[in-house]
């Protein structure tokens, strides 16, 4: 039969096969773990070295092993990359403010390569949410005054902008000069946006309004419809490209954390809390408030869902640090498992952790993988069995590792 195929047709078939293989090599892992063509592994780790070099490593297991970033990782161009990125299907997405470019990267042969990019000017990402497999909603602020809420809806397969612009959320006024958008959640063609305002006094002195605002925004029209207010705590959520603060549980109820401690809202007299927006509602459940500060006697930052109404929260130890100057470098963070129904907490018997904001928990089935940067015991992924409550050391990051700054599922 082969002889019946003309030479040009044969060449065309060969070309198609070649293009297909090329596409496999250069496209992201489309949801298939350890795709044999892309070479993408299951997990990604972002490392800050003792010499301040930064690396991305990929691995197929967090359960055990030993990795050296300088040997096993891709050293990053720190002028281009930082750890405030989004990971999906084997690709990394990052906004570089100076280049005014939102870029898509892929790790190949220990080199992080830019695959494509979109020019994005005057945009500082506050929150991201995937609205579909390759539809990404970025919510942010203008990057000079941090006072105008903006959005970008992107198609990440082709890396093109679907829509974008300002959202008419009230700008800061009176004594307030900037703002933070802490969470964005899609609910039946409506977006719930949680935010608050800041009063600035000096280079490192500011405070936050005592009010959390939750505005319902029409989607895709992006017109604000109505606003709910909360004064039981403030600074809702946080920048979720750096750390997680919210999730939907199995029943469709949405939980978000508020962080008034010095590392985020700087209203330390208010409690760290967990709020709930019930399924089908656009306002907080006024009968529900989990006062974490009362339970832990410290402020917390970061929340990860374990399922079954349980979360992991990361809490500071105010007796172990002096202020913002050593908040990130001193090992003082503890991990707690909090029960959202019972409103109880118990501390995990882990070494004290360092690094103020980190994406440091991955939950897979009954196992929570927790990265801990201990000044005394080194940098490990710890395995917390959600069912049995057991804890054990897993993968170790050694060599140049100073901080495991984030871990992601690819």
């Amino acid at each position, binding site marked *: 039969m082969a002889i019946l195929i003309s030479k040009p047709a044969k060449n065309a078939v060969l070309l198609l096969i070649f293009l297909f293989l090329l596409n496999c090599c250069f496209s992201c892992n489309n949801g298939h773990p350890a795709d044999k063509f892309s070479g993408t592994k299951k997990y990604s780790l972002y490392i800050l070295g003792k010499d301040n070099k930064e690396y991305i490593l990929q691995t197929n297991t967090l359960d055990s092993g030993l990795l050296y970033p300088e040997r096993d990782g891709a050293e990053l161009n720190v002028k281009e990359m930082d750890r405030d990125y989004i990971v999906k299907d084997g690709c990394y997405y990052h906004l570089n403010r100076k280049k005014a470019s939102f870029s898509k990267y892929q790790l190949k042969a220990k080199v992080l390569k830019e695959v494509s990019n979109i020019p994005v000017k005057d945009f500082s990402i506050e929150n991201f949410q995937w609205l579909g497999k390759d539809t990404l909603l970025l919510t942010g602020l203008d990057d000079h005054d941090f006072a105008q809420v903006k959005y970008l809806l992107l198609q990440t397969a082709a890396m093109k902008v679907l829509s974008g612009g300002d959202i008419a959320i009230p700008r800061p006024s009176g004594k307030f000069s900037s703002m933070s958008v802490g969470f964005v959640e899609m609910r039946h063609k409506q977006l719930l946006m949680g935010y608050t305002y800041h009063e600035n*006094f000096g280079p*490192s*002195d500011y405070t936050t309004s005592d009010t959390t605002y939750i505005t319902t925004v029409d989607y895709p029209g992006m017109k604000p419809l109505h606003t709910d207010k909360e004064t039981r705590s403030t600074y809702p959520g*946080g920048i979720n490209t750096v750390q997680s603060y919210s999730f939907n549980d199995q029943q469709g109820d949405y939980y978000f954390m508020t962080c008034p401690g010095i590392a985020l809202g700087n209203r330390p007299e208010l409690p760290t809390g967990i709020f709930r927006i019930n399924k089908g509602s656009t306002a907080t459940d006024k009968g529900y408030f989990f006062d974490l500060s009362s339970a832990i006697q410290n402020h917390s930052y970061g929340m990860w869902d374990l399922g079954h109404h349980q979360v992991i929260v990361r809490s500071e130890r105010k007796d172990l640090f002096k202020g913002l100057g050593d908040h990130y470098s001193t090992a003082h963070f503890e991990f707690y498992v909090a029960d959202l129904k019972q409103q109880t907490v118990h501390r995990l018997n882990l070494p004290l952790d360092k*690094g*103020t*904001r980190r994406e440091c928990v991955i939950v897979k089935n009954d196992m929570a993988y927790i990265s801990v940067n201990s000044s005394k015991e080194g940098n490990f992924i710890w395995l917390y069995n959600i069912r049995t409550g057991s804890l054990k050391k897993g993968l170790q990051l050694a060599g140049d590792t100073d901080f495991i700054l984030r871990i992601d599922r690819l």
Partner: protein
Amino acid sequence: MLLIFIRIHTFTLKNGRTLMKISKELIEKYHRDECTAEERGWVEEWLFSAEADDELVLPAGEDKAIHQQEIWNGLSDLFAEKGEESAVPVVISQPGVQAATPPAGRQAPKKRATYALWYRSVAAAAIFGLLGISWYIIRSKVEPHLVTVDNTSSFDVRYLDSNGYGIAVGPNTEAKINYHTGFIDFSGSLMISPKEDIELIFHGDKEKVSFKMGQTYIILKDKKGGDKIIVVNERNLLDLPPVIQKRVTTEFNI
């Protein structure tokens, strides 16, 4: 070209038994090569002698360091101008450099084109080599030990440079920097990029703070914050509260 020196005030330099009068006019004369040997000696001693800096007698209320910084800035500007106008040679020079530059009106006889090209190339190389040496000597000796900066702008950053480190002074920042002792008294925001491993002492802080070569550090201190100082490596900026981190990133264009 010499207008850059207009801001130089007249002041007296006392060095041992000699009293020398340094003025804008004298420096202009120096650059026109019209100084007497004695005047040339005064200017060069004033420019190149670190000891002489310590003996400066200025009008009451005037800051010696600011005068020197202004002059140094002028010299820097001048060299920058010269870099662009490379056809015109020496402005500040060591004795002997002028000899390589024929005075106007006394042009050498025409040579064959190839010889002239070769001659010019060698001369240019010699001039730039000596310029480089002059630059190095001036830079290492004239640089003031104490610099006071009051950046009242709400938006702009000012940049200072020393042998040991470059400093970007943020908006609304007052800083007194002693390059010799490494003592810094400031309120506002600074960004420091050391060219070698250094230790600095901040007013109100008892311990020296180490800064590593090739790294960039952000230092923040509020007027009302007492002695609380935040020193953070640029690589740890995302650990600062986003309200601060976003402002620092924008101010210093990180």
